[in-house]
């Protein structure tokens, strides 16, 4: 069997597994967020928090909950790192320096998991397990909560509230992320992933001498890191490390975990707005883009070799033998089209076009299928833009899911799609103008520019992957990517929740002969087109200077 065929079969197997999970998981999540019942453990948790989970919140109240919870998260994670030196179970690692601690705290609370540190050299058990892995859960649950709030805005039939943030947060953790992560972690251990709390210890080698390992709760962190589209590796090499991702099976399984919730949320959405076909149209958009990107990535990684890769006879630099080119391409596309950023191979050493495809995936706003929650609200914003464009063409007030898209709604959607490009392009431009920031580049020329463009694209879109040659552990990059992550996460959420509030106040309008049928393939085509054109126009100049220049030079 040729490696290309094996790659295609792995893609098909993945699609089959995702299809099997789609209906049960999507339906289950809709029940979780629609139910009026509380589990006993949830009641204990609400009592611990001191909130009433039955209070329905207006959008400002919901937003205040999101922001307060996240602010506390940044502060606590920052303190945990700053105090590492005096905490127990820290394996003797020092406290993290302020700029890096801020960067890492912002990174994990925003579901980005950009890492300017090497896990095995910097973080002990307490920070990894009770700090970083906790944010893997809760930042994912916050993302899903905000998406569900927006869906409730569409579904609300009268001046309505958006639900209760604390209930959505706790249910996301307790009923969705925790049970799946628990099973997934055990599957990973059974396949060879590490899971212990041993300290740093020496292990003998074949020709004598020893290597020093640090043990840790790797599998439990790996499971949630993929499932909640976080992506922060226990080790520096992330999911390329054999202790995180030991076999070809775990590799596919981890890609499955990355994609399963974001895809299934389209069904949750369909059920909650009362038409699963609306969910299918969104799903079809996501799948079209995802499969298209995988095909492009496989083409360039298998066939379009330049420079050193042509010399080597294959694009194996930064890739593991057990995964090979095909599976690594699927992983790279899946991690950058979601907000994950975990890597099983190193994007900086991909072909010029391959690195560009990873970049473009993030630039689309990570909506195909996107991060948990953030992918759904991101693509719904694009759907509003697409409906608006269609409305302009026929001169009719646009509607989506029975709600009118008026001036206020389109303003909120337009500001949403401007935030991340503004962050990416301004931060990249300023960095390129600073000699000290340029000094952080590992590679010369177009690729060096791509390293910085990739860093801010990754941070602002809350991805977390990197052209990792860039030395990002400087005050400039720690501070600027930290701010880009915070603004790139929470500003969009402000506009999403404002939009949700505005939609929830509207009476639904009846469907007429003039209504654009947003559950039909025509709309899927329109949406794919709108996404590609808007993002293409925004980023083309920057892409031309980086990956396109590199890919075309060969």
């Amino acid at each position, binding site marked *: 069997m040729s490696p290309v065929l094996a790659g295609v079969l792995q893609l098909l197997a993945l699609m089959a597994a995702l299809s099997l999970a789609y209906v049960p998981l999507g339906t289950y999540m809709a029940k979780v967020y629609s139910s009026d019942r509380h589990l006993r453990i949830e009641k204990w948790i609400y009592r611990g928090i001191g909130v009433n989970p039955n209070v329905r919140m207006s959008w400002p109240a919901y937003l205040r909950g999101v922001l*307060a919870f996240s602010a506390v998260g940044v502060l*606590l994670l920052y303190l945990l790192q700053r105090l590492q030196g005096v905490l127990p179970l820290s394996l003797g690692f020092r406290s993290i320096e302020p700029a890096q601690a801020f960067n890492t705290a912002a990174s994990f609370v925003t579901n980005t998991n950009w890492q300017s540190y090497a896990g095995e050299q910097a973080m002990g058990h307490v920070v990894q397990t009770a700090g970083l892995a906790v944010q893997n859960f809760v930042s994912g649950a916050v993302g899903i909560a905000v998406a569900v709030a927006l869906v409730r805005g569409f579904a609300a039939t009268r001046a309505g509230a958006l639900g209760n943030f604390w209930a959505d947060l706790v249910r996301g953790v307790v009923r969705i*992320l925790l049970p799946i992560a628990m099973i997934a972690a055990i599957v990973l*251990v059974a396949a060879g992933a590490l899971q212990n709390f041993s300290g740093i210890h020496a292990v003998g080698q074949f020709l004598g001498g020893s290597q020093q390992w640090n043990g840790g709760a790797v599998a439990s962190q790996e499971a949630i890191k993929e499932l909640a589209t976080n992506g922060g590796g226990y080790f520096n090499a992330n999911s390329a490390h054999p202790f995180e991702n030991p076999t070809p099976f775990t*590799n596919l399984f981890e890609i499955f975990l990355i994609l399963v919730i974001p895809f299934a949320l389209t069904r949750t959405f369909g059920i909650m707005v009362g038409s699963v076909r609306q969910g299918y149209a969104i799903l079809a958009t996501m799948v079209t883009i995802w499969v298209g990107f995988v095909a492009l990535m496989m083409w360039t990684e298998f066939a379009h070799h330049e420079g050193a890769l042509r010399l080597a006879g294959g694009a194996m630099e930064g890739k593991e033998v*057990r995964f090979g080119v095909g599976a690594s391409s699927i992983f790279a596309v899946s991690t950058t089209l979601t907000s994950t950023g975990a890597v099983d191979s190193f994007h900086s050493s991909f072909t010029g076009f391959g690195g560009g495809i990873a970049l473009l995936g993030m630039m689309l706003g990570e909506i195909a299928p996107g991060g948990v929650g953030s992918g759904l609200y991101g693509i719904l914003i694009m759907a509003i833009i697409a409906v608006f464009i269609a409305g302009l063409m026929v001169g009719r007030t646009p509607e989506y899911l029975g709600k009118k898209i008026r001036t206020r709604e389109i303003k909120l959607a337009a500001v949403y799609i401007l935030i991340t490009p503004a962050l990416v392009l301004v931060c990249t431009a300023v960095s390129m103008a600073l000699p000290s920031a340029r000094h952080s580049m590992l590679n010369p020329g177009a690729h060096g520019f791509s390293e910085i463009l990739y860093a801010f694209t990754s941070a602002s879109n809350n991805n977390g992957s990197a052209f990792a040659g860039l030395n990002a552990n400087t005050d400039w990059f720690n501070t600027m990517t930290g701010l880009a992550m915070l603004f790139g996460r929470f500003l969009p959420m402000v506009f999403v929740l404002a939009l949700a509030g505005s939609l929830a106040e509207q009476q639904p309008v009846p469907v007429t002969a003039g209504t654009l049928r947003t559950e039909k393939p025509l709309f899927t085509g329109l949406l794919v087109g709108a996404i590609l054109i808007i993002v293409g126009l925004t980023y083309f100049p920057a892409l031309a200077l980086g990956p396109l220049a590199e890919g075309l030079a060969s």
Partner: protein
Amino acid sequence: MNNSLRNTARLLGAGLRALLVLTLVTGVVYPLVVTGVAQAFFPGKANGSRVGADGKVVGSSLIGQSYDLPSTKGDQPPAPDLKWFQGRPAHGLGTNTVNTRYKLLVSGATNLAADTKALREQVEAARAAVVEDNSVPGYTVEPSDIPADAVTSSGSGLDPDISPQYARIQVHRVAVRNGLPVERVAKLVEEHTQGRTLGFMGEPRVNVLALNTALRDLTA
């Protein structure tokens, strides 16, 4: 004003309590339960898939290691011990060092771009070394036969595997150095070649540590 301050404080208090409670659930109970299950049912795997030979641990089946001659001069890169099968180059290992307290196994890739002189030079040097090291009287390695994994660094820098083709290239040299028939060593490589999982997942590969361990058994 006073009222809104009080409300903010109350909200932050709720946020803090929520985080502490969820930390208990996801940061303490969850990892401990997973660790408990892992240690009860898969202790070997949960502790790093160590492999032993003659009652001694010789490493992990998942972690690549080097098979070098003892270093003679301090700062010279050690030379490969050609008696043994060699793994992939590992130029990326140990970069981004921030903590030098331990001699830790640090993972990492080179992150070099395809169009850089540095990566071209690494590939060229590795290719020349593969030809030189593995060509023995009666068998010359053709540069066009060398697979990509033999001349590139992996993502983790700890890749435990090589492609079957790279293993086959090393067969003649290993046979000569160990005084074994070529067919015997070739058979050893065949026996240690793992196909794709279920026929389509990943790529065929040979675990270098397992291969060398079997080789040592053969020569002992």
